[in-house]
């Protein structure tokens, strides 16, 4: 009897109820997109047709895709583009992390900071700014080179290698982040111990340093590769004219542009999904492998900096140049192009021709700022929603013993395998079928963002959550504090650093996101990034740049405000 009463009490316990609600939410947000894509790939009917919902499947789409030379070409392009971009970004990231963390190069900290500051520049603007620099017709660098040497169009961005260059440059900050954390995870004592046994530099490198760092480096390479497979901006803006088709653009054009081909879109999606699931499997295996190698670290860890002597000025100039290309150039080019006269067909105009008319036109146009407002709303709203869901998940997973909590972790993390184009497609189709009035509103984009950003936000919160000892909560329980009060009074304040960092990350990424927003956009829910793409399609790079500058401005204002807020909280915590 007593056990039954306890059980009933347990069922009634609304902690269990809210856990179930969370699981339902996650199944809805994460599992349905996977099912949606798989289901559609096995159907020849389109979503909305009666036959689409019937029980009965066919492999016709796969057969059609495999027979198509375009599919094979897209596969080769996707893999080759990913491999080359990965190698380039890795080389750049390795160089920067070595310069910043391991040498006495002047301005090392500034270089590291500026590399990471790139996060606030939307990918679509980076791509556009490189087109404005090295396109064969209007490219600024080409124009300068022609003036100097008389040779026309030295560089051409509309080629495979142009794509690799732009995407490689764009990924260097991620590579830098991954590589420098891999190096920091290694205890320098392990190398010293090798030296003390009489091993020289080379043997230590070959037998100790390289094998120890290998899993983390392998994981970094895989993540860079996966990121390129899923990337969209560069293939969309450059790949079209360069005639380099990859999976992501094929999904997009077959879904969102006439003529639509649902069957092909879903097979390409499945191929993307397959690559990303397989690679992620190896990624996590390597990561676990690497963690096993982390041993007790002495408290006196000090990374040793190499004295480069006069060479430090060479590394300084080289890395400043690289960082300028990564972070400074897109911004400056945008700013410059926004001041060019509207009818100008060249990137080079006399200084006195520069004008503010593009901004005037922007301000005169009605509703011109709606997309900026949409992006802001999506940034703030989805960051807040994601952090709420994710902190509840992290709480259940790390701080309770309720059975089923592990499912939460798995579900929330599974969406990392969904590339953005696939996610966008799945959401579009699902809400074509389900009569919820979200199509064409910000809601559908926001819901997709929830799925997209959850796994990343979860990592920020989980690591802070694990640092909070169970005894803290038990102490509160013994003191008779109800658990929800406990959550708000004990957990939230202690989680603040992780929450703020995660919130900030999601806010910035949701603001600048293009792929999902573009796939789900209709007339009234356009975000700033989507407008940039529209303007690009219209061929007006001056208006685009003016709008781009406005987008920058809004994002910088948002970043500054949230930084000020988090710093204030940080200081309060210390006093």
């Amino acid at each position, binding site marked *: 009897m007593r056990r039954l009463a306890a059980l009933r009490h347990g069922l009634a316990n609304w902690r269990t109820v809210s856990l179930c609600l969370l699981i339902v939410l996650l199944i809805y947000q994460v599992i349905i997109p996977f099912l949606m894509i798989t289901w559609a790939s096995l159907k020849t009917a389109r979503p909305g047709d009666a036959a689409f919902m019937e029980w009965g499947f066919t492999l016709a789409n796969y057969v059609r895709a495999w027979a198509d030379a375009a599919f094979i070409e897209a596969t080769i392009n996707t893999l080759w583009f990913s491999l080359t971009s990965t190698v380039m970004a890795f080389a750049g990231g390795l160089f920067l992390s070595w310069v910043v963390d391991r040498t006495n190069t002047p301005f090392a900290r500034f270089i590291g900071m500026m590399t990471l500051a790139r996060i606030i520049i939307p990918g679509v603007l980076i791509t556009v700014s490189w087109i404005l620099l090295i396109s064969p017709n209007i490219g600024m660098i080409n124009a300068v080179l022609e003036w100097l040497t008389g040779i026309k169009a030295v560089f051409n961005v509309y080629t495979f290698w142009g794509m690799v260059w732009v995407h490689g440059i764009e990924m260097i900050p991620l590579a830098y982040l991954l590589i420098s954390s891999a190096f920091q995870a290694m205890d320098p004592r392990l190398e010293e111990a090798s*030296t*003390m*046994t009489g091993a020289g530099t080379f043997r230590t490198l070959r037998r100790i340093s390289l094998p120890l760092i290998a899993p983390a480096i392998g994981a970094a390479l895989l993540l860079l590769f996966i990121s390129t497979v899923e990337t969209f901006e560069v293939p969309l803006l450059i790949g079209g004219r360069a005639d380099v088709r990859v999976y992501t653009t094929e999904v997009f054009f077959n879904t969102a542009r006439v003529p639509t081909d649902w069957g092909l879109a879903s097979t390409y999606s499945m191929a993307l999904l397959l690559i990303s699931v397989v690679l992620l499997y190896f990624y996590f295996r390597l990561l676990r492998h690497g963690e096993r190698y982390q*041993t007790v*670290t002495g408290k006196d860890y000090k990374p040793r900096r190499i004295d480069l002597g006069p060479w430090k000025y060479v590394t300084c100039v080289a890395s400043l140049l690289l960082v300028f290309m990564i972070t400074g150039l897109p911004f400056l080019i945008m700013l410059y192009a926004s001041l060019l006269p509207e009818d100008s067909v060249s990137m080079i105009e006399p200084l006195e021709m520069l004008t503010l008319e593009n901004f005037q036109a922007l301000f005169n146009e009605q509703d011109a700022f709606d997309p900026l407002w949409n992006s802001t709303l999506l940034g703030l709203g989805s960051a807040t929603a994601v952090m709420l869901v994710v902190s509840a998940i992290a709480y259940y997973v790390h701080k309770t013993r309720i059975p089923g909590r592990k499912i939460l972790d798995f579900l929330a993390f599974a969406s990392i395998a969904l590339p953005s184009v696939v996610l966008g497609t799945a959401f579009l189709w699902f809400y074509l079928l389900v009569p919820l009035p979200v199509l064409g509103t910000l809601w559908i984009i926001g819901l997709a963002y929830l799925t997209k950003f959850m796994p990343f936000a979860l990592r920020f919160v989980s690591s802070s959550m694990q640092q909070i000892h169970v005894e803290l909560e038990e102490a509160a329980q013994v003191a008779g504090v109800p658990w929800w009060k406990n959550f708000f009074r004990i957990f939230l304040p202690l989680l603040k650093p992780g929450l703020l960092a995660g919130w900030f990350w999601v806010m910035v990424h949701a603001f600048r996101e293009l792929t999902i927003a573009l796939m789900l956009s209709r007339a009234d829910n356009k975000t700033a990034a989507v407008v940039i793409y529209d303007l690009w399609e219209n061929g007006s790079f001056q208006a685009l740049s003016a709008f781009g500058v406005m987008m920058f401005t809004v994002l910088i204002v948002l970043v500054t405000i949230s930084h000020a807020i988090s710093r204030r909280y940080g200081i309060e915590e210390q006093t």
Partner: protein
Amino acid sequence: MIIVENLSKIFESKTERVAAVDGVGFTVEAGEMVTLLGPSGCGKTTTLRCVAGLERPNDGRIQVDGAPVVDCPAKTFVPPHLRNLGMVFQSYAIWPHMTVFDNVAYALEGKKLARAEIRRRANEALELVQLDGFADRPAPRLSGGQQQRVAIARALAGSPSALLFDEPLSNLDAKLRSEMRSELRRLQQQVGLTSIYVTHDQSEALAISDWIIVMRAGRIVERGRPTEIYRAPKSLFTAQFIGNTNLIPGTVKAAAQGGGPVRVETAMGTMAGLDPNNDLKVGEAVRLSIRPEDLAITGAGAPGAENALTGRVRVATFQGSAVEAELAAGEETIQCHFGRDVELAQGAEINLTFDPLSAVVLRDEALEDELDAA
């Protein structure tokens, strides 16, 4: 034999210039274990790392077995892998991607030995640390104590001319630490290796060393046998850093004569103790250091008798082998360590006395901050 002369190491950052080691010199005789002891930041680890070759000193000379490995005036610097020294790290520094055997055998690889010989010597080293059954285990799947044994076997395997220990036991729990402490001492004596041992743990230093060198702020404070350092420290710093002691403030009333005791005027009356430096003058501010175990209970003594204290029991705790008590004597708190049969009631007044030969009188100096930092 290791000879260190006038060693200095300066760490420079943008804001400051710190002399971590400042003119340190000592000798380690063949087969001896010398401990560098001091609070954190005293330069002991930096000194050791200079001997190892992992830091390049700014000044000084170091010789290992007669060969100079560092000679700053002559700009000689032998890189660490050519010094033939073994080192045991605080964090064990066991290579996690290798088995136990590979960790040890790696130390023999550079020696151009036959494979069978490497195998034999590595197994011998593992046997020495009683890990012979663990050879094929992946190194991370060992307990902390076992990892430390692997580290020791690895350091021993290459038959180095000397062993360097950098706080090797500080990551172990208390029980394991005292076990490993005796084991280390046994090994060191069995193998007869010249060793330098760095620690901030005074009981560890007392237990395993032939000689203790006490360091403070980059300099050597004093050097002595463990028993000397404990019984007759030559400075207030050493007295307070090593073991528990009562430090009663006072002024010198009569200086020592012919090795006899010094007389000190304190708030509790006149007390006598030894002057280990033989240089105290009348009127100097001093502290009388009495170890808690040197205080004995007596009956009511004659008023004004020397070395007599009266205190009220504030708290007494039974420790099994002993009774520890804290007494209030005027302004001072006196710590006592009695035999297990003593029974003390709280608030009881008791009389204590001590042998003048067991107390030392030391020149007073301000130390508090530094010891707190340790």
